């Protein structure tokens, strides 16, 4: 229970921190005799009492309690934040720091990719993940490059490598147009074949 960064020295030469450290215990031999330490202990006891009362008052203050609606809203938003995944930079850092000032959520990019896939009647999008590629080398020096990994199911009647390559090109174009990052690598796993 020490007071941080306190440099207050009492008339007897002790630091107030020393008194504070012993405030919860009975006074020691010096404090039994020293009027400065006794005054300091009394002040600290008042401070302690006031703080406890304030904490107790806050606990009982209905205005400081969260309503059921607010708790539900917080829970809902927290779940949404988890689903959004990581934040991907929208452009390379201009401040020289690691923290990006413009970002897009991983889920937002995945939504663009899945939606592009869903436009094709014979391919069903499944899981999709996105990560930043460090060694991007595109025409736009500010552009961030990503690697996308999409798992799909393909209709048996139309399954062909050409369809997958066409999907890859559409994903690259959609990510550039709608997000503004470069889909440098698009891995597509055909993990199932379904009836058309």
């Amino acid at each position, binding site marked *: 229970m020490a007071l941080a960064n306190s440099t207050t020295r009492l008339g007897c030469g002790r630091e107030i921190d020393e008194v504070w450290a012993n405030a919860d215990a009975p006074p020691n031999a010096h404090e039994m005799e020293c009027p400065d330490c006794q005054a300091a202990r009394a002040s600290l006891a008042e401070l302690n009492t006031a703080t406890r009362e304030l904490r107790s008052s806050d606990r009982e203050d209905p205005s400081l309690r969260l309503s059921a609606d*607010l708790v539900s809203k917080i829970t809902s938003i927290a779940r949404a934040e988890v689903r959004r995944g990581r934040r991907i930079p929208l452009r390379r850092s201009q401040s020289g720091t690691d923290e990006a*000032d413009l970002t897009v959520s991983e889920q937002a990019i995945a939504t663009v990719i899945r939606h592009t896939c869903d436009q094709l009647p014979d391919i069903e999008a499944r899981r999709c993940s996105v990560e930043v590629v460090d060694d991007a080398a595109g025409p736009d020096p500010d552009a961030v490059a990503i690697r996308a990994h999409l798992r799909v199911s393909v209709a048996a009647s139309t399954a062909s490598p050409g369809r997958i390559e066409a999907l890859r090109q559409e994903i690259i174009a959609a990510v550039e147009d*709608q997000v503004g990052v470069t889909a440098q690598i698009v891995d597509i796993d055909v993990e199932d074949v379904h009836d058309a």
Partner: protein
Amino acid sequence: MPEPTDVPEIMITTSDRRDAGRVHAGSDVESEILGPVDDQTLVSLIGVTVLAVDGVARLEPTVKSLFRARIPGSSSGPDSPDGIAVTSYGVITEATVDLATTARHQSRAVAESIERVVREVLEAHGREAGQIRVNVLSIDQGPSAAD
């Protein structure tokens, strides 16, 4: 295919314009030099400004912004728009915007437009713009009221 994102024309006005002087802080964005406002008002002004940017579907609340709105003395109050937070250090003000964009507009271009207009709002009210963070949390694929 999305359309190119245009920076909207934004004019911020107050009822008292006696001391207002017009400045052109950007090529397309026009603002007025206005009087100082508190952080809570600034949050509201930024909210209105951001929602006027083409391609913005809506502001998105976060857990952080919800809690911030309940802290007494915070820059955000219960009636503040979701998804906007400002923090001031003297004359320097930092801003964070969390939002959803529409698929018809490129998220990066929208975010850069927002970064620009938020800077305009801060400077119009005598603040020095610190870091401005824009987080696109979702991209709406369907038609939006913002379009």
